[in-house]
């Protein structure tokens, strides 16, 4: 009897539809719980803070709803910077990894050097990029966008190149021998073996890069010449002591992050579908 019930539970748990629904439902439920604790000021007791430093969700919502056009414009700029920077940076990072995997003797050193970019703080990178891109365009908005995107890009390069390099080089035993026996060209080995092998690693890198891209976009906006974006608004409002508004923008940043993360998970589940069969 007990066995039976357990197996129903297990079957329920292992059911595909149940799993898909639960992987959305559970975090949402958890989020609702947190929101409730937040609104009920339980979080404030926990963190020993007040409703000014950590404003209530209801107030944050009000502010967002009252200012949808402003928020939308700022969010749009931040999304453009984060997404373009993430994509271009990841592609460059991947290309560096490809280069490094192709010429391993020289490439490994290159990966180390790229890792060094990781160690240059964004607060240093952002003003330097703003300085370097002064001549890009006469339109301050365009050159600011360029500078911000560059920052995000540089930051995303490192995590992608390190991970992708592993994916491109840590192959199953004898897989390389197999390709060698076909006298496969390096490019063929790359497209038929290394590339598919690296896909799961690429997704690991992207999982790390998504939040990094947004936070770098936000921070680089602090330093940009043209005043726009979620990050800039967060800073302005914090300096002005407008915590509720600042938190409204933080929430927007989080929503951007969640959406990007959701898209990533979706793409991952489609791309890696066939590998999940066990």
């Amino acid at each position: 009897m007990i066995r039976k019930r357990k197996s129903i539970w297990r079957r329920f748990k292992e059911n595909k539809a149940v799993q898909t629904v639960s992987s959305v439902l559970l975090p949402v439920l958890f989020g609702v719980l947190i929101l409730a604790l937040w609104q009920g000021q339980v979080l404030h007791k926990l963190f020993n803070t007040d409703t000014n430093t950590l404003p209530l969700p209801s107030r944050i919502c009000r502010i967002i709803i009252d200012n949808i056009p402003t928020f939308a414009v700022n969010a749009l700029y931040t999304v453009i910077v984060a997404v373009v920077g993430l994509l271009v940076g990841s592609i460059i990072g991947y290309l560096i990894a490809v280069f490094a995997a192709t010429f391993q003797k020289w490439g490994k050193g290159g990966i180390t050097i790229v890792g060094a970019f990781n160690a240059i703080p964004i607060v240093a990178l952002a003003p330097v990029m703003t300085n370097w891109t002064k001549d890009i365009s006469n339109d301050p908005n365009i050159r600011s966008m360029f500078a911000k995107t560059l920052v995000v890009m540089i930051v995303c390069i490192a995590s992608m190149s390190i991970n992708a390099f592993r994916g491109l080089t840590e192959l199953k035993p004898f897989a390389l021998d197999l390709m060698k026996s076909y006298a496969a060209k390096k490019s063929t080995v790359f497209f038929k073996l290394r590339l598919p092998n690296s896909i799961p690693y690429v997704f690991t890198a992207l999982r790390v890069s998504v939040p990094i891209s947004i936070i770098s976009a936000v921070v680089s906006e602090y330093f940009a010449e043209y005043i726009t974006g979620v990050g800039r608004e967060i800073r302005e409002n914090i300096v002005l002591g407008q915590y509720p508004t600042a938190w409204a923008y933080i929430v927007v940043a989080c929503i951007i992050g969640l959406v990007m993360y959701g898209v990533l998970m979706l793409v991952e589940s489609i791309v890696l579908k066939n590998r999940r069969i066990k």
Partner: protein
Amino acid sequence: GESASSSSDSSDSSTDGELMSNEEIIKKAAADGKVGNWGLGNEYEILALLQKYDLPTKYLSEDFTMDGFDQDNITLASAMTYNELGLVKNDYDGGYKYGDTVGTIDMNDEGVAMLEDNIFCTKEFAKQNPNTVKAFLYASMKGWKYAVENPEEAAQIVFDAGSSVSSDHQLYMAKEVAKLVTTDTKGNTVDNYGNMDEEAMQQTLDLCKKYVQLDDSSASSKLEGFTLDDIRDTQYIDEANKSTDGKFGNLEKTDVTIQLKWLPQAQFMGYYVAQAKGYYEEVGLKVTITPGGGDISETTAVSNGTVDFGVTWVANLTSANAGGMELLEIAQVYQRSGLELVYKKDLFTK
């Protein structure tokens, strides 16, 4: 050296043209979209100025250096008289060496001045520690007085206290700051340091109401209803200035902290002098000076009790209160606006 001489050459060659009026300069720069300010609550005077000339209230962000100005990305740049302006003009370390080839537009003259450096604490702190507040103000003002009268010594004191600014610039700054502390917006001399001039305060508050844009509707309606009494209390500075010995009875708190609005430099020389000369000790206080310029703003730090006193600008204090903090200005150290717009003369000749 090379570049400085070349730029003065170019200004020499352009002296045949006639310099534009302030209005023309502002209009030209605004039309090019090359007016600069740091934002972050420093922009209201500029917005008021642009509005005064019926110009769109848009500006570019300056990054706390004058590189944008130097490279002509910004042609009409905000500069504090005591800091950026000195860097633009002078040729000491970090300076851009423009000398007299640059001109300035003064906010006080344009009638859009807002008051800057003050001393504040929370309303609750003031209420619970009145004697401490008064003693602190007494000693601080004594420090300011000494600093204003002895700028060389004050500059040295700040430099020794771990200032990050070169000693040349420090001295320049001390002299300029002295002017701000002892002259009001109309150019009259002030001798009761820390005084809150009603008219200038009111003008500042009015400009705040007009130009501080708050997305938070409850905050902006709160701001709308503010009177001076919501942001300042004059009793403490008045009593401090009346006292001759700095004795105010039992001090409720003797260990206090003050967070500056910016990095340690002569902008805040009064506190460093009071510290170095032992004025704080004389009134029975042990004071720690925390530099600002970090991500935790002085209003936040005072509001959440990390520090007791802070130095900020009136506009910042006003908007923080609108946002829900309960801060109280207790002294107004700078009596006039230190903000000017600087431009290269050769770019604005007819």
